[in-house]
């Protein structure tokens, strides 16, 4: 891995080839908002919250799927970027039915957090209020399409970490929907192992444990790095916080 030099917000920083702009930016302690990205999952580049301005022309690029390259000049928080990010968040709120006051993830939701962090205090677009279903046929979990932002974290974790590939995406544009087993009720799915990984990585209240009420749902992501470290590096345990090879 060669060392490269990139200019971030007028400051020269060094990185390594093979790094994404997002990794490099976050290494510098700069807080770039993301929704579809989750450490440990392959990137999707779908939400566009992480976009940065690149080069003299200020071309927009999603930092999570753009490799850092020698000599790049990027800006992470220009007035234009903040304006666009706020528009993206407002559009996400307008597209489905987000009523935080009665949502299982109220107070812990990543969408909600990104919204107030960026300064969104109201939505300037007309709410579409689509008529969307919930599927509560699974014995332990529920999918509420009203809260889904189509980040596909569930699709990716189920496929690449659990290996079940229960989830997929159907439809186009505003009619997009995540589906289980080619659009069968989740409860009748024969591929789902009920591991719950999709529920844990979902950034919003869309996937939640059955029986959870307003603001009750708590999600954990740390299992992901654990599993991946075990699988890829054969690190199965930690001692005093440090990884232990082979788990001894």
């Amino acid at each position, binding site marked *: 891995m060669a060392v490269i030099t990139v200019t971030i917000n007028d400051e020269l920083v060094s990185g390594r080839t093979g790094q994404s702009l997002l990794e490099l930016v976050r290494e510098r302690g700069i807080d770039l908002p993301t929704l579809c990205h989750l450490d440990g999952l392959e990137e999707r580049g779908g939400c566009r919250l992480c976009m940065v301005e690149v080069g003299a022309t200020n071309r927009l690029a999603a930092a999570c799927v753009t490799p850092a390259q020698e000599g790049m000049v990027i800006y992470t928080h220009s007035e234009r970027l903040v304006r666009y990010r706020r528009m993206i968040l407002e559009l996400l*709120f*307008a597209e489905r*039915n*987000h*009523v*935080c*006051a*009665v*949502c299982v993830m*109220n*107070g812990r939701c990543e969408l*909600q*957090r990104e*919204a*107030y*962090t960026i*300064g*969104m*205090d*109201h*939505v*300037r*677009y*007309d*709410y579409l*209020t*689509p*008529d969307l279903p919930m599927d509560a046929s699974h014995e332990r979990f529920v999918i509420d399409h009203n809260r889904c932002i189509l980040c596909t974290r569930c699709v990716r974790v189920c496929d690449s970490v659990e290996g079940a590939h229960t989830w997929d995406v159907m439809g186009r544009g505003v009619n997009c929907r995540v589906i289980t087993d080619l659009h069968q009720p989740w409860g009748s799915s024969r591929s789902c192992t009920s591991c719950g990984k999709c529920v844990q990585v979902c950034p919003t209240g869309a996937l939640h444990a059955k029986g959870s009420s307003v*603001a009750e749902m708590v999600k954990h992501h740390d299992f992901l790095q654990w599993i991946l470290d075990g699988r890829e590096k054969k690190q199965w345990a930690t001692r005093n916080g440090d990884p232990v090879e082979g788990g001894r």
Partner: protein
Amino acid sequence: MTQSKSENPKKTAGGKKGQGSTQKVRLATVWLGGCSGCHMSFLDLDERLIDLAAAVDLVYSPIADVKTFPEDVDVVLVEGAVANVDHLELAEQLRERSKIVVSFGDCAVTGNVTSLRNKIPVDDLLTKVYHEGPGAVPRGGETDKVVPALIPRVLPLHQVIPVDAFIPGCPPDPERIWTAVSALLAGEPVVLEDRMRKFG
């Protein structure tokens, strides 16, 4: 999709009014389609209400016995979404008669719980709740002229009239309300820190 009318205007309340000068800020609070929780939270300002009372004249409010929305209001806090024809009328009236209109709480800001009915056509909704719901079926099938007719879709306030400031929250906690209200009384724009902008 259309952009709403409000584009973050930087208006301020009656300048130095209430700050040593004899004229107090004319404050109104309005209750549209909400549960009154925002007003309850307002009352939770507790002893700060005493400071507030010294700085304002409460010229219209569900907690004051005033029948019509007065002229020359400096600041009006509006709780609730616009859900029926009376709300529409009052919203337009209060806009005309006030300098600063504040969307007060999630129902005013987003439609929130009040707007959960938007997926259901109004007729079906009334049938479901009043004709097929529990208890005696109301007499007659004709429209009741006393109860204001519901509008087809519940709207956030800023989609009906231009709004100058937003206080999210269901309800907004007293700290948010105090931060916003003290800024307005001081003639400054409302700036809430990030946690104070959280919906829900």
